[in-house]
């Protein structure tokens, strides 16, 4: 059921998808180069499994955040939201249910906070979530005392979430795919999804048709919060330990994945399938770089360049930032 990057999916141009064949080709080219350079190390089962596990965390956040971006907004506080969730999991690593519930609740609250500021007060999403990022950073650091959190007790159910396999496929991937399926369905087939596109395309017209952009935007941020909470639990349980700052910067990966997947930053267009492709790409890039021996520096630089190239190829459909 997993999508291999070499499969060429079919997209309907109407609701987004990869807007421009150009982006897709650029991605393919990069993947081919990276895979070729990393040689045989890439295709080993161990490596592929690792790759899949790390993709899941970013992927979880990305499919949910796609909804936020379709409404024309953005969420930069993800990195510290997931940090908070992971730390909460660490503190409650003895009780899986407790950890899950608390992590999800905390992040949902963060999401609701974002939602109120951006959806109800109609503040600029970019700067606002930059601000809430700082706020969440403060909270996370205070909560964890800035220290690394390691599990002291054996907890197999928690371990299973991050490190287990179901039918030979890592659990995190299942979680990611199920989430992907749910959000894909939400966007495409439900009234909620249609309203998200409407709010993204023109919130004023949507309002005249009875759609409250405040509610829709709130919902997208809260959903992102909930999913990030789950992602935080997965994040922690991958190695059963976490540093509070480990999540910082993930929002950039999420943003890159979503934009590469064809979601327009000005809102109104985009879909989950494209995001998943974007996530896979970002994951392969990161994995490949590590295998080649280049550090995160090189990856940063390359990601930056790719983003520019992708945006250039996408420029026709971008009507201008709402920021």
């Amino acid at each position, binding site marked *: 059921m997993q999508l291999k990057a070499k499969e060429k999916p079919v997209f309907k141009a109407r609701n987004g998808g990869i807007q421009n064949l150009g982006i897709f080709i650029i991605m393919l080219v990069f993947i081919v180069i990276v895979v070729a350079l990393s040689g045989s190390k890439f295709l080993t089962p161990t490596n592929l499994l690792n790759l899949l596990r790390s993709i899941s965390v970013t992927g979880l956040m990305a499919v949910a955040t796609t909804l936020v971006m379709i409404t024309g907004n953005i969420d930069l506080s993800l990195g510290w939201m997931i940090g908070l969730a992971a730390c909460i999991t660490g503190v409650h690593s003895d009780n899986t249910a407790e950890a899950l519930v608390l992590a999800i609740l905390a992040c949902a609250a963060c999401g609701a906070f974002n939602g109120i500021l951006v959806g109800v007060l109609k503040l600029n999403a970019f700067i606002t979530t930059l601000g809430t990022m700082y706020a969440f950073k403060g909270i996370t650091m205070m909560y964890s005392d800035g220290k690394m959190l390691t599990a002291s007790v054996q907890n197999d159910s928690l371990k299973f979430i991050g490190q287990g396999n179901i039918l030979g496929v890592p659990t995190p991937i299942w979680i990611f795919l199920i989430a992907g399926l749910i959000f894909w369905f939400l966007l495409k087939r439900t*009234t*909620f999804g*249609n309203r998200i596109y409407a709010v993204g395309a023109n919130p*004023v017209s*949507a309002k*005249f*048709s*009875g759609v409250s952009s405040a509610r829709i935007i709130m919902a997208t941020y809260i959903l992102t919060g909930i999913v990030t909470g789950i992602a935080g639990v997965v994040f922690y349980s991958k190695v059963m330990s976490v540093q509070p700052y480990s999540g910082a910067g993930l929002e950039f990966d999420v943003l890159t994945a979503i934009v590469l997947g064809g979601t327009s930053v000005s809102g109104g267009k985009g879909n989950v399938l494209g995001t998943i492709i974007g996530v896979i790409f970002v994951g392969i890039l990161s994995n490949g770089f590590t295998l080649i021996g280049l550090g995160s520096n090189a990856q940063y630089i390359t990601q930056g360049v790719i983003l520019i190239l992708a945006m250039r190829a996408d420029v026709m459909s971008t009507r201008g930032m709402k920021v």
Partner: protein
Amino acid sequence: MTENVSVTRENTFFRLEDITKTFPGVKALSVVSFDLRVGEVHALCGENGAGKSTLIKVMTGAHKKDSGSIFIDNEKVEFANTHQAIEMGISCVYQELSIVPLLDVARNLFIGNLPMKGKVIDYKKLYADTADILKKLGLNISPHEKAGDLSVGQQQMIEIGRALTRKARCIIMDEPTSSLSERETDTLFEIIEILKAQKIAVVYISHKLDEVMHIADRVTVIRDGQHIITKDICDITEVQIISNMIGRDLGNMYCKEPVNQKDTVLEVKNLTKDGVFKDISFEVRAGEILGFFGLVGAGRSEIMRAVFGADKYDSGQVIINGKALKPGSPAASIASGLGFVTEDRKQEGLMLELSILANMTLPKLKDLSSGGIIRRKAQREITQKYVDSIRIKTPSMNQLAVNLSGGNQQKIVIAKWLMMNPKVLIVDEPTRGIDVGSKAEIYALMNELAKGGVAIIVVSSEIEEVMGLGDSVVTIFEGRKTARLKVTDTLTREDILAASIGGVTVKCS
């Protein structure tokens, strides 16, 4: 019409000959010629999509022609860009104004053209020259006022002033009165006279033929990218212009039929919003068409927005079919049977990047879904039904709204509400910027709706429209209702205008 004896053939200073311009798939202009004489007002008429805007763009250098020639003072010229055209004296005042709201009037007048003393801006000269131009145009505005604080009419004057600072020889005005009140329109006409006296020609593009007959010296009609006719205004009638524009005779556009009106559906009681409107009360019955007339800025749209719930109000009540309506909630209004076709379809009525299907079915989604999941077949079927019955010109319902003409876009908005089977439909300026053919279709639609028992409120700044469509007319002046007049054969324009200018006590009939 004004007398200007010196406007003769010899004074032609700007000439376009045999212009052809093709876009992928569309021949926008086909061997079109147009000429302009010093100090004349030359009207340009044509339906939407006839090629007027393309012609203007060629005239102003925004588009390059594929073939043909442009002459200024009998010398062939080529415009590399709009700036060059401006330098050669061809200026344009567009419908979408190019005002910088945060800057003051003086800096708006002299955008890109600030007076300099060496390398430094000469502010003294800037404000002095601005004051001069404002005086010349008879405008009572300070050069230091922020352009964003001015009314639309005043902003338009600023744009005309800007053309003057560029020593324009010709000013093209594209639908200049679409957002102006009657008073501001009169001011505009006075300014056009001033321009003529200064030997500045005006190309006047407008759907409002009564204005054209009033102000123009000559009129040119374009249809389907081709030049149809150019005549002196004295040698042609309004009816002839229309039939040249659409290529057929239209007959009576409004075709109003008497409808058996039933019970009161909508009751508005003492609606008040501080500083905007006060004590607005009126009723509409099923099958009745109520006109809502007033000068621009009187508050009509604001009243309707409050009734619909797009804005909140301070006191009063809105009652539909006997039940009080929850204020400030469009969703509640829609659920109670209200529909609202807004003034500005691009900003408020449509989601341009989405498809016709998505646009039309947005309010109806709840009915088209079970448990939150959309029944796509039902959605497609009902959309197709309306696309067919209203005759929306499109290859498919998946076409993006932005790709349709103004008339068809408006039809989408109307269809969206028809789908909801409203009990009361409010339409605000339903035919603004729409070609004559589509106008007639929309009027027919509204009459049919009324026959079917829908109560309709038509907010309009066109007296003819309100008199032609409405059973009664409510006039609004400065946020207050001044009269409700029954439309009969004896009711005249002047009656309505007098009532709308205010100071009159409420007349009920």
